[in-house]
C-alpha cells in the first residue's frame, strides 16, 4: 500500500528536518515528516543557539523562543582569552540558550502549522529504483508501509543510520565527538556569555576538546565537556571528565562554590565530518551530512540552514535537486566539502589544534589565524571579489574551487581554511584570474571553453599570490615552551608550503618555456619581498618587475595568443600598475586613477570596459574608461614610477 504521491518525505524531525519541511511546505509542496519519537522529546546538547541559528529560526517564522540570552562566547585557553562578540555577528546579534526539548517541538509545530503532516514512525530503509531513492519503508504502530516521495530529506542525526541508508551509507565509520553534560544551579548570577575552557586534561594527557559553561537561566547553567574521539580519548569516562570539570570550575569560580547538580550527566555523540553524500532523490541534512563545526561541535545553525537549502533546491530544480543542494551547501558553508571525505584525517586536525594549538583558538593575528577564527565561528562567507561581471566571476570562481580542492586533498582543514583565506581583503585573491577574464571578455573570447592548461596556470598564479601573502604575514612565534608547537606560525608555514607544492605541480605540467617564465616571475616576486625586508640586501630591478610579469602572463592567457607575442602597450601599463599595487601593497591615488583611465581609453571599447570593470573591483573605487580629453591632465599627473618599471 503506498501513499498518494508526496513531494518530500522528511525523515527526522529535529531542526534540520523541521526546517526542510517548513520551507518546502511554504513553497506549496506536499510534505510528510516521520520521526521515531513522539514530540516533545529531549536531546542531549549544549543547548546554545548562535545568531546564525536564530536567524534561520526566524526565517521559519518562529520568534520568542523561551531561553536565556547570551551576548557572546568567551574562549579561555589557560592564560589566553578570546571573546567572540555576537554583537559583531549577523542579526539578531545575540545568542540564546534554550532547551532542545522546547526548541525542537516549537520548530516541528511550526512546520505542521503550515501544513506538513507528521507521524511517529521508524524509517527502516530507503527504497531504490535503480540509482534513485524513491521513498522509505516506515514502521508505525499501524504496521509497516512504503512511503513514496519525489525527494527524501534524511535528517536523522549523527547516528549514521546504516540500516536506513543501506547503500548510501559511508563505507568508513563516521568520526565522532562525544559530549557529556548536566545542569547545575549556581550561586549568584549565571552570567550572559557562553564560556568554553581549554585545555582538557585526562591523566596528564592533553585531550582534544573543551569544557563549557552555558548559562540557561539567571542562576543555572548547562555545563559539560566535549571531546573528539582520538586514540587518546577512547578509554575515557565522560562522567569523570564532567565531574572533574565541575570541580575545577568550583575551585576558581565563585558561581560554582556550592554547586548543586540538578540533573544526571547525559552523553551523546556528534559526527564531525562529511559522512553521507547526496544522491539522486536523497538529500542528507544536519548532523547526518556531517555539518557540525569541526572545532566546536556546534551543529544547529548548519542543520537549520541545510534543511532550508535542501528545500530550496527541491523547489528550484526538482529534477536536479541534489546537485543544486550540493552547490548551495558549498556556497553557504565553505567548510563543507563532499570531496573524498577522509574522515579520520579531517577529524584529527581540528582536534590537534584544540589539543596543542593554544594561540590559534584564541588569536586572530595574522592571515591564517584570522581565517581560522572565521572558520571556527562559521562566519558568513563574504568574498571580497564581489562585483565582477559574470563571465569574469566565473574564471575567478574556477581558480578558487581548484585551490580549495587541492588544499583539501592535503588536509581537509587546509581546504576549509583556504576558502576563508581567499576572502580576506589583504590577500587580494583573484586579481590575476580577473585580469585574464577581462582580457578574455574584452576580446570576445568568453564563449570559448577554458582549456585545462589555462585553468591550471591561472590557479598557479593565484597560488603564488597566496603563498606570498602568507609568508609576508607570517605571525610572530607564539609563546614557546622550548618545543615545537602547533601555533599560528607553524600552521601558516605548513599551509603555504602545501600551496607551493600544488603550484609547482601545475607548473610542471605546463609547456617548459611558460613554466620557466612563471617560475622566474614567482621567484622574483618572493625574492623582492625577502630583499626589502632584509636590511643588508637591496632588490634587483628584475625582481621589482616580477609582479608586473605575473600580470602580463595572466593577460597572455586571456588573449589566447602565444606567450612570445607582444602585448599592446596599454596592457603593459595596466599590468605594471597592478604589479606595483600588489608588490607594494598600495592602492592607487587620484592621479594614478586618472592615468589609468586615460590608458584604458587607448584600448578597444569592449576591452577597455571589461578592464575598467575589473579595476573597479580590485581598487574598490569606480574606474571609468577615460577620454582623450583627459590625456593632457593624465600626462602631467602620470606616475613616473610606471615608466621606470617598464624600462628594461
Amino acid at each position: 500500500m503506498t501513499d498518494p504521491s508526496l513531494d518530500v518525505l522528511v525523515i527526522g524531525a529535529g531542526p534540520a528536518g523541521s526546517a526542510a519541511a517548513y520551507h518546502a511546505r511554504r513553497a506549496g509542496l506536499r510534505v510528510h515528516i516521520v520521526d521515531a519519537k513522539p514530540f516533545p522529546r529531549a536531546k542531549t546538547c549544549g543547548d546554545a543557539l548562535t545568531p546564525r541559528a536564530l536567524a534561520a529560526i526566524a526565517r521559519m517564522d518562529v520568534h520568542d523562543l523561551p531561553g536565556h540570552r547570551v551576548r557572546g562566547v568567551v574562549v579561555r585557553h589557560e592564560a589566553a582569552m578570546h571573546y567572540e562578540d555576537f554583537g559583531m555577528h549577523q542579526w539578531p546579534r545575540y545568542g540564546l540558550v534554550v532547551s532542545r526539548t522546547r526548541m525542537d517541538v516549537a520548530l516541528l509545530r511550526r512546520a505542521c502549522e503550515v501544513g506538513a503532516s507528521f507521524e511517529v514512525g521508524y524509517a527502516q530503509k530507503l527504497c531504490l529504483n535503480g540509482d534513485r531513492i524513491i521513498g522509505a519503508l516506515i514502521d508505525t504502530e499501524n504496521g509497516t508501509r512504503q512511503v513514496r516521495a519525489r525527494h527524501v530529506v534524511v535528517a536523522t542525526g549523527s547516528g549514521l543510520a546504516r540500516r536506513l541508508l543501506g547503500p548510501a551509507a559511508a563505507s568508513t565509520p563516521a568520526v565522532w565527538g562525544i559530549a557529556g553534560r548536566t545542569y547545575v544551579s549556581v550561586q549568584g548570577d549565571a552570567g550572559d556569555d557562553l564560556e568554553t575552557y581549554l585545555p582538557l586534561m585526562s591523566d596528564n594527557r592533553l585531550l582534544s576538546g573543551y569544557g563549557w559553561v552555558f548559562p540557561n537561566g539567571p542562576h543555572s547553567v548547562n555545563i559539560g565537556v566535549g571531546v573528539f574521539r582520538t586514540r587518546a580519548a577512547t578509554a575515557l569516562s565522560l562522567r569523570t571528565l564532567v565531574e572533574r570539570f565541575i570541580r575545577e570550575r568550583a575551585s576558581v569560580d565563585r558561581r560554582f562554590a556550592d554547586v548543586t547538580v540538578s540533573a544526571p550527566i547525559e552523553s551523546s555523540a556528534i559526527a564531525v565530518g562529511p559522512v553521507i553524500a547526496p544522491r539522486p532523490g536523497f538529500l542528507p541534512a544536519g548532523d547526518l551530512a556531517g555539518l557540525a563545526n569541526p572545532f566546536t561541535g556546534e551543529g544547529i545553525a548548519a542543520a537549520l540552514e541545510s534543511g532550508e537549502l535542501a528545500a530550496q533546491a527541491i523547489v528550484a530544480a526538482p529534477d536536479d535537486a541534489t546537485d543544486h543542494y550540493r552547490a548551495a551547501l558549498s556556497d553557504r558553508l565553505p567548510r563543507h566539502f563532499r570531496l573524498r571525505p577522509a574522515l579520520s584525517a579531517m577529524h584529527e586536525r581540528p582536534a590537534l589544534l584544540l589539543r596543542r594549538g593554544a594561540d590559534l583558538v584564541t588569536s586572530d593575528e595574522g592571515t591564517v589565524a584570522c581565517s581560522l577564527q572565521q572558520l571556527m565561528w562559521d562566519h558568513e562567507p563574504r568574498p571580497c571579489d564581489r562585483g565582477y561581471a559574470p563571465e569574469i566571476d566565473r574564471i575567478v570562481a574556477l581558480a578558487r574551487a581548484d585551490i580549495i580542492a587541492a588544499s583539501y586533498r592535503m588536509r581537509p582543514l587546509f581546504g576549509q581554511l583556504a576558502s576563508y583565506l581567499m576572502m580576506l581583503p589583504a590577500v587580494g585573491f583573484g586579481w590575476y584570474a580577473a585580469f585574464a577574464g577581462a582580457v578574455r571578455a574584452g576580446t570576445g573570447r568568453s564563449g570559448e571553453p577554458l582549456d585545462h592548461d589555462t585553468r591550471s596556470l591561472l590557479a598557479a598564479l593565484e597560488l603564488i599570490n597566496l603563498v606570498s601573502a602568507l609568508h609576508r604575514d607570517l605571525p610572530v612565534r607564539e609563546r614557546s615552551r622550548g618545543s615545537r608547537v602547533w601555533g599560528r606560525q607553524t600552521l601558516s608555514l605548513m599551509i603555504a608550503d602545501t600551496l607551493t607544492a600544488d603550484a609547482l605541480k601545475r607548473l610542471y605540467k605546463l609547456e617548459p618555456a611558460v613554466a620557466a617564465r612563471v617560475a622566474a616571475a614567482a621567484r622574483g616576486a618572493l625574492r623582492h619581498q625577502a630583499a626589502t625586508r632584509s636590511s643588508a640586501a637591496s632588490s634587483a630591478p628584475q625582481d621589482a618587475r616580477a609582479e608586473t610579469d605575473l600580470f602580463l602572463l595572466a593577460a597572455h592567457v586571456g588573449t589566447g595568443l602565444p606567450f612570445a607575442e607582444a602585448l599592446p602597450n596599454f596592457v603593459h601599463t595596466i599590468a605594471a600598475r597592478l604589479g606595483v599595487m600588489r608588490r607594494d601593497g598600495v592602492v592607487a591615488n587620484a592621479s594614478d586613477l586618472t592615468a589609468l583611465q586615460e590608458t584604458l581609453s587607448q584600448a578597444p571599447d569592449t576591452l577597455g570596459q571589461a578592464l575598467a570593470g575589473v579595476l573597479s573591483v580590485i581598487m574598490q573605487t569606480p574606474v571609468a574608461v577615460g577620454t582623450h580629453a583627459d590625456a593632457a591632465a593624465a600626462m602631467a599627473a602620470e606616475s613616473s614610477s610606471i615608466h621606470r618599471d617598464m624600462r628594461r
Partner: protein
Amino acid sequence: MTARHAWIGDIVVRRQLSAVEQLITHAAGLGGDCPPFHEQLLAPESKRLRPALVLLAARFGSSSAESPLLAAAAGIELLHEATLYHDDIVDEAEQRRSRRSVQKACGPVTAALAGGELLFATAELFAELPAAVRHKIGRAGDRLCHGQLRELEMLGDLSCTMRQRLRVMRDKTATLFTLSAHIGTALGQVEPVAAAQLVRFGKRFGLSFQLADDLLDLSGPSRQLGRPPGSDLRDGVYTLPILHALRRSSPAARQLRADLAHLHQAPQASLIARARTLVRQAGGLEWGHALLTRWLDMARAEIPPETTINAGARASLLQLVDRLRTTALDRLPHPTARATSLRLAAHDGSVA
C-alpha cells in the same frame, strides 16, 4: 675542486659537481652579490649529497647530455635547502651546520620568503626536464609536505607506531634521495634493472641517513649536532630507537614512558639527559645501531654490479655508505656482544 667533494672517486662527477656549485652560486646571487638570506646556500660545510647522487646515478647509464643533468642536480639541492630554511623556522633552530640559521640571521619572515623563492627557483631549473621526471618531482614535493605535516601531527603522541615513524622518515627524508636517483637514472638513460636498483639504493640510503641522525640526537655530543642534544625527546619526535625502547618491559622503559609525557609538557635539561640515558638502558641505541647496520648493508647490496663505465661511480656510492656508517656508528657506544633477536623483518622499511 673543493674538499667537500674529495670523497667522490669518479673524476667526471667531481668536475660536474663543481659546475653544479656554480649553478647554485648563481641561483643565490642571480648575477649580483649573494644576499644575506642565501648565505646558507653557499656554506662550504654542505655535503651536496643529493646532487652527488643525481650525478653518480647518471654515470650508470649511457647518456652524456650534461646540461640538463647539472641543472637538475642544482635544483635538487635548492629544493633540499628550501626545506631546511622552513624547518628551521618551525624548530626555532638558531644553528644550521654550526652557523646561524637563516631564520635566526634574517628573521622568520625573510626566511619564509627566501625558502619560498628557492622552491620556485627549482621549477626554473627543472623546467626543461622530461615530463615524466617533472611529474615525479611534483609528487615528491607533496610527499615532503606530507612527511613534515605528519611528523608535526605525531609530536608527543606516545601511541605512534614504528610503521608511522617509518612512513615519516620515508616521506620527509628518503624522498629527496629517491628522487635524486630517479632523476639521475632517467637523464643518464640507465637501463631499467640498474635504474630500479639505484632508486632502491636512494631510498635505503635516505632512511639510513635519517636513522643515523636520530641516533646521533640520542647519543652524540652537542658540538657535532649543531643543535642541543636530545631535541627529538624534548620535542616529542619519537624516533625508531625511542619507540623500540618504549616497547620493552623493563623498568627503564616504564620510567622513560613516564618521563616523556612530562618532557613534552615542560622540557627540562635534566629530564632530557635522563631520558637519553633511559633510551640507552632500555636497549634503544643498540637496536638502532643494529638496524642501521642492516639498512646500510641493504643499500650496499642495491648498488648495481660493476661494469666498465661505472667503476668510479660505484666506488663513490660505496664510499657514501661507508662514510655514513663511520659518522654514525663509530661515535656510538659499542654494541654489546649479546645478539639481540631483532624483528627486523617488520622494520626493513618495506612500508608501501
